[in-house]
């Protein structure tokens, strides 16, 4: 029996961050992890997929742009998939090892094993070395989510895979059918295509990334995805699969008719579900909603006052950075600080080609919130020197502001390094910046970041590097 002030269950970007902050605040803290430290994000999610995307992006550049730039490669480029995957794994191991060091450095006790509540005060932790009992004054449930499995496609993670299995392919599959054109499915599709895989996406909706990002941003990615040779089937419902002598036949219903798609591997990326059915949460009396999320308040406290929940397990959006914010917040609440979840926006980034990133509201969300008079404009990367010199000119920065006050309500980027550019937008939204605040901040030249300044100017009606009608914009109310 071990006793702690705080026990964190799950060591993903919510859990390990919470544990470190708890330790910093002087709590005797333990963290329990059944798999690798860092959770899905570091091991089978964000980080490994980015490693694959970076590598395949370079490959794509070498194959497509080098020649134009006068960089001739003698002979073709050979992809050593086994080496690529082991390099990807080394990235994950480095990150996971780093988390281990940080936890140790902060004197957080790391317990390896599968935790289950016995009651409100006690966990049993099963590991290879046996079962131990752990008690604590406070528990933080950070047990995350897992890929949704659909009927007819049971994961074996070799041939019928979730993202986890797909990231571990150690040879380039010839034909892949991807069920679900959300951000995870698209990211993997994009990089597999660059490796030469024939990819067919079976999407139930009539567009990709529907409801996730700004529709115009999604359109840019859709066009480029289709141009790259990926086949997208809209309004298609995957019904089942059949193993044949040369792979699989996936049946999908499209417009009431069944169509068959051949594949060597099947990837199912239709979303993720919270792990509310695990950890025996009901033994502690923790309330769970009908979708499997643990019910929490603005302090991320569950119905049991000394038990908190953070990250994917406690609600949408299921994003690592939201989990980390909650982790820090809950640790500080435990130490007596008065905090609530008080963020205006959780930025979303999609590592497609090109990338999509957004902060704040879409036009539809603005309207739903009662902002009826909006200023909306876009600035294209094609008009940005750095983008042209990188040979990455697809996409734009789109800004949405309140017409009366010029307060920025949303920024949506599709284009090169959108994921890195979006942080300025997050700051702008959180600070309540006006278009002029961005327009009047000197942005360094020549950088992709200038597109932010130019998009703000464009929304005000007078960007320099695109032609706008004279005085198209309104004069600021009180500049």
């Amino acid at each position, binding site marked *: 029996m071990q006793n702690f002030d705080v026990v964190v269950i799950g060591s993903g970007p919510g859990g390990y961050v919470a544990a470190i902050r708890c330790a910093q605040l002087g709590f005797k803290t333990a963290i329990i992890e059944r798999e690798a430290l860092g959770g899905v994000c570091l091991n089978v999610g964000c980080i490994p997929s980015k490693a694959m995307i970076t590598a395949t992006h370079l490959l794509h550049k070498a194959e497509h742009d080098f020649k134009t730039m006068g960089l001739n490669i003698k002979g073709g480029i050979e992809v050593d998939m086994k080496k690529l995957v082991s390099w990807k794994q080394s990235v994950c191991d480095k990150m996971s090892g780093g988390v281990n060091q940080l936890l140790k450095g902060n004197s957080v006790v790391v317990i390896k094993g599968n935790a289950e509540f016995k009651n409100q005060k006690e966990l049993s932790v099963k590991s290879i070395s046996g079962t131990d009992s752990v008690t604590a004054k406070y528990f933080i449930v950070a047990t995350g989510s897992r890929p949704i499995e659909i009927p007819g496609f049971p994961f074996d993670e070799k041939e019928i895979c979730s993202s986890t299995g797909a990231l571990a392919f150690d040879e380039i599959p010839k034909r892949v059918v991807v069920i679900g054109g959300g951000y995870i499915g698209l990211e993997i599709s994009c990089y597999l295509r660059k490796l030469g895989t024939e990819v067919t996406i079976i999407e139930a909706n009539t567009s990709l990334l529907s409801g996730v990002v700004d529709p115009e941003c999604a359109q840019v990615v859709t066009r480029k995805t289709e141009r790259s040779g990926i086949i997208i089937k809209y309004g298609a419902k995957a019904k089942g699969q059949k193993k044949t002598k040369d792979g699989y036949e996936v049946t999908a219903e499209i417009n009431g008719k069944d169509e068959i798609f051949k594949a060597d591997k099947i990837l199912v990326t239709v979303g993720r579900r919270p792990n509310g059915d695990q950890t025996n949460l009901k033994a502690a009396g923790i309330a769970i909603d009908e979708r499997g999320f643990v019910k929490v308040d*603005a302090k991320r406290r569950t119905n049991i006052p000394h038990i908190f929940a953070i990250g994917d397990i406690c609600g949408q959006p299921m994003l690592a950075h939201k989990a980390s914010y909650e982790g820090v917040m809950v640790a500080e609440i435990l130490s007596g*600080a*008065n*905090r*609530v*979840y*008080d*963020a*205006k926006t959780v930025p979303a980034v999609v590592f497609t080609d090109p990338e999509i990133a957004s902060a704040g509201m879409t036009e539809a969300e603005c309207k739903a919130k009662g902002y009826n008079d909006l200023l909306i404009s876009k600035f294209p990367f094609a008009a940005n020197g750095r983008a042209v010199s990188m040979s990455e000119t697809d996409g734009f920065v789109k800004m949405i502001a309140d017409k009366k*006050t*010029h*307060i920025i309500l949303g920024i949506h980027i599709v284009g090169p390094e959108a994921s890195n550019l979006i942080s300025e937008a997050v700051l702008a939204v*959180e*600070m*309540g910046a*006006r278009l002029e605040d961005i327009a009047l901040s000197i942005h360094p030249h020549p950088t992709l970041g200038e597109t932010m300044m130019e998009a703000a100017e464009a929304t005000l009606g007078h960007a320099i590097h695109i032609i706008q009608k004279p005085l198209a914009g309104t004069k600021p109310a*009180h500049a």
Partner: protein
Amino acid sequence: MATDVKLPELGEGVTEGELVKWTVKVCDVVKADQTVAEIMTDKATVEVPSPVAGTVKELKFKKGDVIKVESVMLTLSGATYGTATTTAPVASKAASNGHTAPPVATPANNTARSSTMNMSAASGIYPPVADSRVLATPATRRLAREIGVDINEMSGSGLAGRVTREDVISAKGGTASLGSGSGAVSAGSPSMNFPKPAYTTTNAQAEERVDLVGIRKKIAQNLQMSKAIIPHFTLMDEADVTQLVAMRESLKDFAEKNQTKITYLPIVMKALIATMKEFPQFNASIDDAASQIVYKKYFNIGFAADTPNGLVVPVIKNADQKTILEISKEIIDLSKRARDGKLKIDEMKGGTITITNIGSVGGTYATPIINHPEVAILGMYKIQDKPILKADGSIGFIKAMNYTVTADHRLIDGAVAAYFLKSFFSKIQNPGVLMMGMS
């Protein structure tokens, strides 16, 4: 399990109070909302209720101690929370329409207040600011929550109503510009830093030092702020109130039948309101933060009242809609409670103009200070018999009464004030005119 009961917010701008007495002792069983202590603030004495029921375990202060708002006053064992504690903290906002009348007495036992107190005792029960339309940086939002200031409906002093760090701090300190967004008046400048020169002396033995606290301190702060912000000017004139005196004499019987007494004040109020309707800039405020003039469509008339604790200004709300008889009764009631220190904070808030009546004591003229954020104050002085030279060359006698109008020169020009006073005189010298405006 012991539960801490904290000293709740006692009113806008009140940060601490002196413990007058405990009304419970250790081992007493208290009910939710039961008064546990009397606290004297710079505004008045307030009865503090317990937000929860339980048994008193420990009293943390003794009589005479100064207790800061939000500090633990006492602990209860076996506390059970009532249902009243979860309501949203609207009360402090509701009270912000208009602004802190200066020197103020206060609520002694006001049930409406107690829900506010319970609420803030449960501290921090208000929704995340990110979900509202309020603009404030993440750091400011955090600060506001940490010190218990709900900025969800605040209109700040920054661009486009942005709530600044300074706004939050001064909201806690009491001079913030809380606005309901719908034309509510913001309270001039947030925290103003006045120089604090020391008084040095060579004759300390023959002097006595007393702390500048309570109502006196509040009076000092408010008047200093008003004088610092508003460029004052005063116009003085003498009115022939012979008819007014006769009219009031003739009303005495009527008043007695209605169990009241009619003074000149309600009649002066009516004449003032009629004049303000012609000169709306007198029924206004300047929102310095927003650089706007706020014209008010309602007439709340404050009147300065001298009390043993110092100057307070009770307010007759919507005086334009009340009869002279009703106003008379209200003045008598408010004056009595002002002297007894029993006015509710609400009863001293929201004035749109103030009348000061020194006449009952003496003095020919004075130069009053405007009750910020109002923009004018009317002074009325003693009625005297005065000989005059009549048109036919003979000497006659009139009842003469001096009036002053002191105005905010930023908004009101000298000539306008002169026309204002002239128009006012046309009514007060011939009170029958007032009947013309009655509906």
